[in-house]
């Protein structure tokens, strides 16, 4: 190993202005996952956006619920902890779910082991604020009756 020197530290921490997306971020703390829909052309957006990229209108955007249940489209258990996620114990399961409203959303599967999961499984969708203040989208497996 040859000579190395330390760089000057650069800390990047952003204050993100999400005022226009307030219903989404408020929904996360109330347990409801929100999306938007353009009433002019009918296109639904998840993630939500307040301008319609299809008809270029921003006048008729309505906030709608993204769904309360859905099916697992795909999932992975991450054994990596990127910077900013070191505080969470254990691995976490990232999944994409197709909701009962026909939108695809991404979140964490909770209350399940990776071995128990299969593509197509039904899940309930909820949200929560974690102890460190960050929001979380949660999928909980629904056991077949």
């Amino acid at each position, binding site marked *: 190993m040859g000579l190395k020197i330390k760089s000057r530290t650069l800390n990047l921490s952003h204050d993100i202005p999400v005022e226009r997306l307030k219903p989404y971020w408020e929904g996360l703390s109330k347990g409801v996952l929100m999306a938007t829909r353009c009433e002019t052309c009918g296109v639904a957006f998840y*993630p939500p956006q307040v301008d319609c990229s299809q008809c270029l209108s921003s006048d008729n955007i309505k906030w709608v619920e993204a769904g309360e249940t859905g099916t697992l489209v795909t999932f992975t258990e*991450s*054994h990596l902890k*990127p910077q900013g996620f070191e505080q*969470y114990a254990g691995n976490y399961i990232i999944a*994409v779910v197709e909701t009962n409203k026909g939108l*695809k959303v*991404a979140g964490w599967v909770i209350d399940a082991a*990776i071995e128990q999961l299969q593509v197509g499984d039904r899940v309930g969708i909820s949200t929560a604020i974690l102890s460190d203040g960050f929001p979380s989208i949660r999928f909980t497996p629904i056991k077949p009756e």
Partner: protein
Amino acid sequence: MPKVAVVGVGNSRFGRRDDAILQEIAFEAVREALQDADLSQKEIDLSVVGTVGSRSYEALPAGPINDYCGFSDKGPIRVEAACATGSAALFTAHNSIACGAADTAIVIGAEKMTEVDIPTTTAVGGRGGSYLWEFHMLGTSFAAYYALYATRHMSKFGTTPEDLARVSVKGHKYAAMNPKACFQKEIKMEDALNSKVIASPLKLYDCCPVSDGAAAVVLASEDKVRKAGLKDPVWIDAIGYGADTSNLTRRSDYVGLNASVNAAKMAYDTAKVGPEKVDVATVHDCFTIAEIMAYEDLGFCPKGKGKDILRDGETEIGGRIPVNLDGGLKAKGHPLGATGVSMVYELTKQLRGESGKRQARLRNNIALAHNVGGHGFSAYVTILRGP
């Protein structure tokens, strides 16, 4: 469109390069490319630097790279397209020549990724989708993004962990024959299958290494090739491009990359060839599942059959369409900005018949490079024709 040729290629050693800073590694590739082309800096009109740079202490790395390599008066542009940065830089330089804005250009792809720690590099990569809706809440990594594709592909088509391991074994086999590759040893199926899980179902040996490295190619117009008598030109017959959503949840499915399909269609149409004419290819195997999906997306086989042509050895030397004979991203390494340029380095050597024991048999003199940006939000497919 006026014809553009690759007239010189260079490639640094890939891997963990604790021995050098970014511009020194770029220089290794630039010197080799200039010497290969038998041209000096003063005969190059334009330098296009491809570097992602988000792990660098240099906020704007192109300037220092150009200075160090003798192109301080030739480098007005830095190009970024995530992991497809190298191909985007090639596209930019190619188009500059094709439209007559330059007669000659150098494309320098360079990346230093190992100077920050693993949680930091994981976080930078994990922010490669759409931050607010993905990394912020999910803690994505790049492995996790491709793992989501792997789970779906395996569920739908019966692709197995052994199939993923086969890609890794193949990559290591050829990397061991490539002195510029990161990994210099072969591995066995068990090594791959028994390696630790990174993002299920992807294990350590399913993932390309975090790497440093550089590659450079010199391009010239047909006119310049003729007038300067440049040797063994490899012609760029097409550069097709495609794109898809940055938000993963806005994709229709997770078993292939629409960006690749569209880029390939454009490239085949422009070059007026089909996949059956391709003698040798480099595909974007940042994770093993990506190579299997690439076979399908590029039309080497129907969707879902990637595992079958892999099992049958069709993508090995002697097979129907040898793929990643340089070791691929998986085993050669994947320094983001360098990768697409390094693919052209490899295929130029192949088309000139200079690849030694890794040489593919040339029937049609056609090679294909496939380079994906991010988790599939961009892709470039380049078709090259030998001298």
